[in-house]
């Protein structure tokens, strides 16, 4: 019985489990208007809704307790590789809660929405400039949704040019798992391209896979090892020569803002993750936004409606390009308030600020890599971009302590774990992305914890196998969760 009250394992029951019949947090005034006719049976529910019956105080305490069990970037360091968990400046929230942006309806008359339309137009202009692209769409609501949309644009482009035989998309083995999924969802056949000993695209392997059935290649640059694809211009000319297009997954764009442009590298379509690079909430705190930007030849195929500026009247408006557009990919304008936050970030940083952010992101990653490689093995031991990958293969072989154990051990030190077991070409991988918003003190702190964890692994691996010991939830049974998932309450 006492076990349930162990102070380091406080479990908060669901609100419905805490409910007491008739307990409530409101009191309605007596009805002083005629009662409306009951709903038609078709629409009325036939069982009582199971809503929690709780007082206001019960409810506030419940959510306050839950908030102390959660972990976010406002609470501590969050070096989740490939996710760019940078700090979200609070000024973003100030603008995103302005009435002119919140108290509107997407079906309002365009004349009464000029501010919102101007903001979307200017965001697209700025993103196009940063990426070296012509124009784009803000409709996609997440990174993978952006990928899906970008590939849909490519598909529509080839449909328009009567090249439907181009049904293959090439993707490096180190790519994000969403890339093959998005290609597959668009009806493309996915083919892997090998990575060479430098950790970069294997040009010979690429050459052997290019022909007139290739629609394009999806790359992220820097790649998922945190390495810049130095041969990108060569890759671009090889793919273009074969008649294919280049897709840029913007997941790792935080390394390049203001420094290099995918458009100049030869990419034709890109998507960005505003919730990564442009400091809007990420993860459970979403929603996200995955704008897609394209080169001139692909502009006719972007989702509709497009946003346009009429020079004669000085007004902004929507333009429906039904003839060529790849269609509509989300309701109304996508996640508009996320775009407001991202635009705020762009304006508050300025072009010098964005450049400085990328410089610091790269510096922070290299600083951490330099401290950690004294004790951990770095499979691609070169100057990295904004993230780097450790391999714990040797440590595991020697001590049986795995990347998972070390990641869980970090939780006991108060840090969010890095990305684990990705990219798959590195065994026992831990992938760190510190981002630019962390101080040297924070980076020193986690590196010290990492070195201490390695010491513990050498001395007493058993303790680490059971970590975390001081979190609300201890080690979870991943095998049982995968084999017998309980996905509803």
């Amino acid at each position, binding site marked *: 019985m006492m076990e349930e009250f162990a102070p380091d394992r406080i479990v908060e029951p669901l609100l419905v489990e805490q409910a007491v019949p008739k307990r409530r947090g409101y009191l309605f005034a007596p009805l002083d208007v005629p009662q409306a006719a009951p709903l038609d049976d078709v629409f009325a529910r036939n069982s009582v809704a199971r809503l929690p019956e709780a007082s206001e105080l019960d409810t506030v305490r419940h959510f306050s307790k839950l908030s102390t069990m959660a972990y976010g970037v406002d609470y501590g360091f969050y070096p989740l590789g490939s996710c760019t968990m940078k700090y979200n400046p609070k000024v973003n929230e100030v603008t995103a809660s302005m009435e002119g942006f919140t108290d509107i309806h997407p079906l309002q008359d365009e004349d009464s929405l000029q501010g919102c339309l101007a903001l979307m137009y200017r965001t697209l202009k700025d993103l196009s400039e940063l990426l070296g692209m012509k124009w784009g769409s803000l409709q996609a609501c997440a990174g993978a949704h952006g990928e899906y949309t970008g590939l849909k644009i490519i598909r529509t482009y080839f449909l328009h040019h009567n090249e439907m035989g181009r049904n293959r998309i090439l993707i490096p083995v180190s790519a994000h798992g969403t890339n093959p999924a998005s290609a597959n969802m668009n009806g493309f056949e996915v083919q892997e391209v090998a990575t060479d000993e430098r950790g970069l695209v294997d040009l010979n392997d690429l050459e052997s896979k290019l022909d007139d059935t290739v629609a394009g290649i999806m790359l992220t640059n820097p790649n998922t090892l945190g390495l810049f694809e130095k041969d990108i211009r060569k890759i671009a000319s090889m793919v273009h020569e074969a008649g294919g297009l280049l897709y840029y997954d913007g997941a790792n764009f935080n390394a390049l803002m203001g420094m290099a442009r995918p458009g100049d590298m030869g990419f034709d379509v890109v998507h960005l993750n505003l919730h990564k690079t442009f400091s809007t909430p990420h993860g459970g705190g979403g929603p996200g936004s995955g704008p897609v930007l394209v080169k001139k030849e692909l502009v006719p195929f972007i989702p509709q409606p497009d946003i346009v500026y009429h020079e004669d009247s000085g007004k902004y408006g929507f333009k429906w390009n039904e003839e060529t557009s790849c269609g509509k990919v989300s309701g109304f304008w996508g996640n508009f308030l996320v775009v407001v936050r991202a635009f705020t970030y762009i304006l508050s940083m300025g072009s010098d600020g964005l450049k400085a952010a990328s410089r610091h992101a790269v510096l922070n990653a290299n600083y951490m890599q330099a401290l950690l490689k004294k004790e951990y093995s770095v*499979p691609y031991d070169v100057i990295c971009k904004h993230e780097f990958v450790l*391999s714990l*293969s040797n440590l595991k*072989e020697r001590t049986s302590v795995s990347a*998972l154990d070390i990641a869980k051990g970090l939780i006991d030190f108060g840090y969010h774990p890095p990305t*684990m*077991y990705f990219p*798959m070409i*590195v*065994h026992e991988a831990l992938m760190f992305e510190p981002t630019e918003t962390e101080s040297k003190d924070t980076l020193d702190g986690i590196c010290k914890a990492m070195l201490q964890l390695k010491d513990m692994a050498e001395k007493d691996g058993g303790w680490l196998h059971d970590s975390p010991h001081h979190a609300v939830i201890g080690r979870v049974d*991943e*095998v049982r969760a*995968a*084999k017998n998932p309980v996905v509803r309450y």
Partner: protein
Amino acid sequence: MSKVIEGLKYSKDHEWVKIEGTTATVGITDHAQDALGEIVFVELPEVGADFEAGDEIADIESVKAASEIITPVGGNVSEVNDALEDSPELINDDCYGHFIYRMNDVVVPDDLLDAKGYEDYLSTLK
């Protein structure tokens, strides 16, 4: 060091093959099961189906990742290891004792490795 058994053939995709006359028995190597981690699901091929060497023949899913099994030999699937449907972890327990599928009328490519060749290959991996 991962366990490698004499008398079996190996592929660079980390499958082992036991060839007896015109039949072959296939499973994944110790290196593969260790890299995958705890296996939670195996999707077996259909008995009677034909495959060529290099085809994706089955899926294997662990707590870390989902991967395809690339068949190292061609042929007609004659038997699958049904026990893996309920207990995929048998592969972690003893990957050489629990095969995934058997094939008849096998076509064996020449680039399969022997135990020594596979060990050498493993030592070149990062």
